[in-house]
């Protein structure tokens, strides 16, 4: 009743002033809204454009310097045109293979443990420390591997580089394994145990296999991340001008070679560095792409069941 009365009355001077102020405030809020949304969009453009520019530049520079000899030839001495990085490509594959051999069993085992012992103090401690390990700078891993594996032996080796990179992979693999094992429905485990499977057979043949696609993805992502690492290899794998596949000897690696060529004063070497960068990124992308395909395969089997 009162409300109706107010509406029929003419607004007082004070009411008119209040509503004018409200309109003014609304206009200001709308203006702020428009400005800030524009600022956000600008931030997106300002960020994305340089990123795009970097990518295009890398691809263009690398592609123009790349030729078949890059993959088949050895590095040439200064002043000689041409040459390739055959030894560095082989070396990188060997070093990340060694890293995989070190990191995979420990990472998957620790991940399984974390998933099966949730809430226990040891599991919590392991989870926290694997995060600590994940955050350690790669250069620190490098000097650790040097102190632990190079200094006592007396010379650089591919193996010490592989161990440094493998140690970096462990926390990444452990955490993805844990996540993936947790997505396995408990009913699967219960069904296996109910059929009389032992715990270990359930773990290996049911849980690990169900989670395997996800774990493979995680392992590949970790591999892609360490494949481009340079700092841990500076004092471990060290680099090698010659063809070497021995794990106890210094070995060449693409990131090391790119670094050495980039800081050199020779144009020929700069060109090789660009080509090497493109090959390294391509290698990382291929690994990541396989990881994506593996994830998709997992979802396909999941929806098919």
């Amino acid at each position: 009743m009162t409300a109706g009365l107010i509406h029929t009355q003419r607004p007082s001077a004070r009411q008119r002033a209040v509503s004018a102020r409200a309109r003014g405030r609304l206009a200001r809020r709308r203006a702020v809204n428009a400005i800030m949304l524009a600022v956000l969009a600008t931030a997106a453009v300002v960020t994305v454009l340089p990123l795009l520019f970097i990518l295009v530049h890398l691809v263009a520079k690398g592609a123009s310097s790349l030729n078949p000899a890059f993959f088949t030839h050895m590095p040439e001495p200064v002043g000689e045109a041409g040459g390739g990085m055959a030894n560095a490509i082989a070396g990188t594959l060997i070093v990340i293979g060694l890293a995989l051999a070190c990191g995979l069993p420990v990472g998957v085992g620790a991940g399984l443990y974390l998933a099966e012992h949730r809430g226990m103090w040891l599991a919590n401690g392991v989870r926290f420390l694997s995060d600590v390990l994940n955050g350690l700078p790669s250069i620190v891993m490098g000097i650790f591997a040097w102190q632990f594996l190079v200094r006592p032996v007396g010379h650089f080796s591919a193996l010490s580089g592989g161990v440094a990179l493998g140690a970096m992979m462990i926390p990444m693999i452990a955490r993805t394994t844990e996540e993936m094992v947790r997505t396995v429905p408990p009913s699967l485990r219960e069904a296996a145990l109910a059929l009389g499977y032992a715990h270990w057979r359930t773990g290996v043949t049911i849980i690990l296999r169900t989670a395997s696609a996800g774990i493979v993805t995680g392992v590949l992502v970790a591999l892609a991340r360490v494949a481009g690492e340079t700092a841990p290899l500076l004092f471990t794998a060290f680099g090698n001008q010659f063809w070497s596949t021995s794990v106890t000897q210094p070995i060449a690696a693409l990131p090391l070679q790119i670094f050495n060529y980039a800081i050199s004063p020779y144009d020929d070497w700069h060109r090789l560095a660009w080509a090497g960068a493109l090959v390294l990124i391509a290698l990382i992308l291929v690994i990541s792409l396989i990881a994506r395909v593996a994830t998709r395969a997992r979802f396909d089997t999941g929806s098919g069941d």
Partner: protein
Amino acid sequence: MSAAPMSPAVLMAEGPGTVVRIHGRHVGDRVYRGTITFFAVCVPLLVALVGWEIAVAGWPTFRHFGLSFLTSSDWDPVKGRFGAAPAIYGTLVSSAIALVIATPLAVGVSVFLSELAPRWMRQPVGFLVDLLAAIPSVVYGLWGIFVLLPLLRDPVMPFLRDTLGLGKTPFFSGPAYGPSMLAAGLILAIMVLPYIASVSREVLLAVPRAQREAALALGATRWETIWRAVVPYARSGIIGGIILGLGRALGETMAVTMLIGNRQQISASLLAPGYTMASLIANEFSEASSDAHLSALMAVGFTLLVITIIVNAVARCLVWRVGGGAASKPL
């Protein structure tokens, strides 16, 4: 077929404990448990081993120089004098520059992607940002040497110093060679941006719809919804992402080594070359001839290790808090 419905009953009757004991007696189970426990224990052992090896190697330096190792800027391997202050200063300043530049952009991009961008734009832009996180440090360094440094040397640094008149302040004075604290900070900004953006985006996507709908229903504009309802809810997660980015920036080695100019000095000017802890190790480690020099570099490594562990622990705590704590936080 009759066995399957029966087993839960058996489990109930005898209790789960009995089943576990039966399986516990199995040799395979003991081996399985032992193996995964061993691998799990490897992680703490590895962390302890890394800390121990580096601490032992750096101990002679800490004992000999004490606190002055961290505060002195006299680094002379020939005379056996080691002070890591310029490297510590350079690490902190270059990371600070990186965060100052990268944080607003990264948060802006992730808010834009999660709140404003049309659906077709989210995937490709998100993919691009992820792609940049995958590019190795040494490749950023290569790009920095041949693209960023010439750009800085010619138009950017003289523009900042002379045209904008910033050269009158101590922060932009001196000659512009290219390799500098500013270059290192810029490349670090480009490198940590994808990390901050991807953590922020995930946290923002985890904000419940009701939070936005309630704000909009109260008559808030889009911006007010974002700034007063969505961002505060995700705040501690975003801060965690920023600190994770800081952890990356502090330990980043290759790109910084290639761009910072590697000179042992503390200069207020961002146009002057400097050093970081990581680049100091990368540069001098393989040339270190004396045990004292090696030990000093190990001590630098240990300092870096301690700083990054603290930074990462803070970040993890903040990111974890988002899960439970944020919901009760007042707007």
